[in-house]
């Protein structure tokens, strides 16, 4: 009787929340659990999965070859993040201080490229950077260089592609935090004798640092995994964690190892987000919800 009553009481909750829960369960929770489970399984000789508990996959992750790839991947992600900050901050600052119409236009300029497939846009960069590409031809015609520069299929090209693809993820959180900044605080700083540069370092920068942190997370983590950027612009010369994972699932047919790599990447992500919230950042500002 009591159970029945309780059921009746929670029925509305169940009905309204269930579709979302089921959705999340099927699309996120179950695949995640599956990845977790197979990360402890082993590869069968034919490339399938043998379900026998083992930590072997995680052990393999520490091999010297892999460590080199992690190092390279982290370095590329780091440079991508830093360069993105320096490009995005002035842009976001300008956008936040613009009139409403100008703001909308700038926002559109940031968002519209999103609506085109990023692969196609990266192919665009290929035609710009290639030996016979737009940039080299331009420089040769202008007699600035005699031999075409080798730009494509280099690590800087990968960083460029990463920055290009991930820039909106840096601009948007930065814009949100700069826009929220109380202008009276800048007036107060100026009133108290602070020149613009001092106002920036004493007030603007510290108060918008959550935006910088949020943007950094949004850029750094995908930059570890965006294998297609290094495939297209790195030409296979640059291996990222993302390429490694992809290769395990594709070429090597070693799903358990790929799963273990994925799990580690997820854990790193969660740790970064945890640090972010610890220092006062808000999950909503990450814009993932």
């Amino acid at each position, binding site marked *: 009787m009591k159970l029945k009553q309780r059921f009746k009481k929670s029925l509305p909750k169940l009905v309204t929340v269930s579709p979302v829960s089921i959705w999340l369960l099927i699309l996120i929770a179950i695949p995640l659990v599956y990845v977790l489970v197979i990360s402890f399984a082993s590869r069968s000789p034919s490339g399938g999965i043998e379900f026998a508990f083992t930590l072997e996959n995680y052990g393999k992750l520490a091999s010297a070859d892999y460590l080199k790839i992690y190092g390279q991947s982290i370095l590329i992600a780091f440079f991508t993040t830093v360069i993105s900050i320096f490009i995005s901050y002035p842009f976001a600052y300008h956008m936040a201080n613009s009139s409403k119409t100008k703001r909308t236009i700038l926002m559109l300029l940031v968002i519209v490229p999103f609506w085109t497939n990023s692969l196609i846009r990266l192919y665009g960069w290929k035609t710009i950077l290639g030996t016979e590409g737009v940039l080299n031809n331009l420089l040769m015609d202008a007699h600035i260089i005699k031999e075409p520069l080798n730009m494509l299929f280099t690590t800087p090209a990968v960083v460029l592609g990463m920055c290009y693809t991930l820039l909106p993820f840096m601009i948007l959180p930065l814009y949100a935090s700069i826009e929220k900044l109380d202008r*009276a*605080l800048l*007036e*107060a700083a100026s*009133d*108290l004798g*602070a*020149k613009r540069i001092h106002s920036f370092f004493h*007030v603007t920068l510290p108060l918008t640092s959550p935006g910088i942190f949020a943007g950094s997370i949004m850029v750094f983590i995908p930059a570890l995994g965006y294998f297609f950027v290094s495939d297209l612009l790195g030409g296979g010369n640059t291996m990222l964690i993302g390429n490694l994972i992809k290769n395990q699932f594709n070429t090597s047919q070693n799903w358990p190892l790929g799963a273990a790599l994925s799990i580690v990447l997820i854990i790193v992500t969660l740790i970064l987000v945890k640090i972010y919230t610890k220092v006062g950042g808000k999950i909503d500002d990450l814009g993932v919800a």
Partner: protein
Amino acid sequence: MKPMVEITNVNKYYGDNHVVKDVSFSIFDGEFLTMLGPSGCGKTTTLRMIAGFEEPTNGSILVGGENVSDKEPFERDVNTVFQSYALFPHKTIYDNIAFGLKMKKVKKEEIKERVTEMLSLVQLEGFEKRMPSQLSGGQKQRVAIARALINRPKVLLLDEPLGALDLKLRKQMQIELKRLQKKLGITFVYVTHDQEEALTMSDRIAVMNGGILEQLGTPDEIYEKPKSKFVADFIGESNVFEARVEEVQKGALSLRTETGTVTAKNDACVQNEIVYISVRPEKLQFSEKEVEGFHLTGVVKEHIYVGSFIRSIVVLQNGFEVKLNRLAGSDLPPVASVTNLYWEKEHAVVMHSRQHQIFSLIDNVDLGEHYETETAL
């Protein structure tokens, strides 16, 4: 007294919007001056122009004899207490107060000494390490004041600093601010829309309306001798009658209002001039019989007991409601009875209406001296 701030023919436009209209006045050294007016009257804009946050479209602003019109806020010897306090949320109370001195690269030991001195001045000893979010509204306000005063500015600008506080705290802070100002001898320029606050705190009040400086004077002058209908209405309560000058005798005027004849002291009026007469509710009196010089009757609508006095409402023939404040215990005509109203002629303030110029021109009357004073306003 030498002027500390001189504002000369200052105008401010936002696009086509003319928010400050040719305002000129001086603020003396050590004075507590309040700019008073309804929202949108240009008082805050004027304050912000003194601070340097806004640039005057034209006109000049001098602080301590030096033209600061095109100087940045950080180059001016003035400091501001903001309505929203604008404390730096990421800095401790100590660092907030020390900010101005740090910017001036004052030595650390001196900063420490002066911050401690300021904290004791605003009675916040021991709050050094707290963050602004841990303080109450009143405490934040004190920090904002300390943060501004530590720079020893020539002028302290206060933009509705008590606006966000509750009534009791407000009253307390009013007294404290006034005491602080007297003790330090710094020129205070205070912006408020609260006329009571202005009357109790200020040495002089600048009443503004629609971008125009309506009147500048001591609280007493502003209250007793308002120069315009707006000032009379805005400061305290008043009964304002529109009237036409019937007869100018020596020292007295006979005036015709829509509902009867009244008397007032002559104040440079000419015959047929249209004026406003302002009479404070406490100056109006009941009479059973008609008083000489007055023919003003109405029906008593109600008596309301307001503690120390009684507020009476009398309705005139044209429906205009006259307010009277009489001491509790005085004889009052019963409700619904017809009563005569009068006042001592020196208690009525005559204000030259802006219409009189046209009126005078039509009637071809000599415009006289008051015309010039009127246009000078």
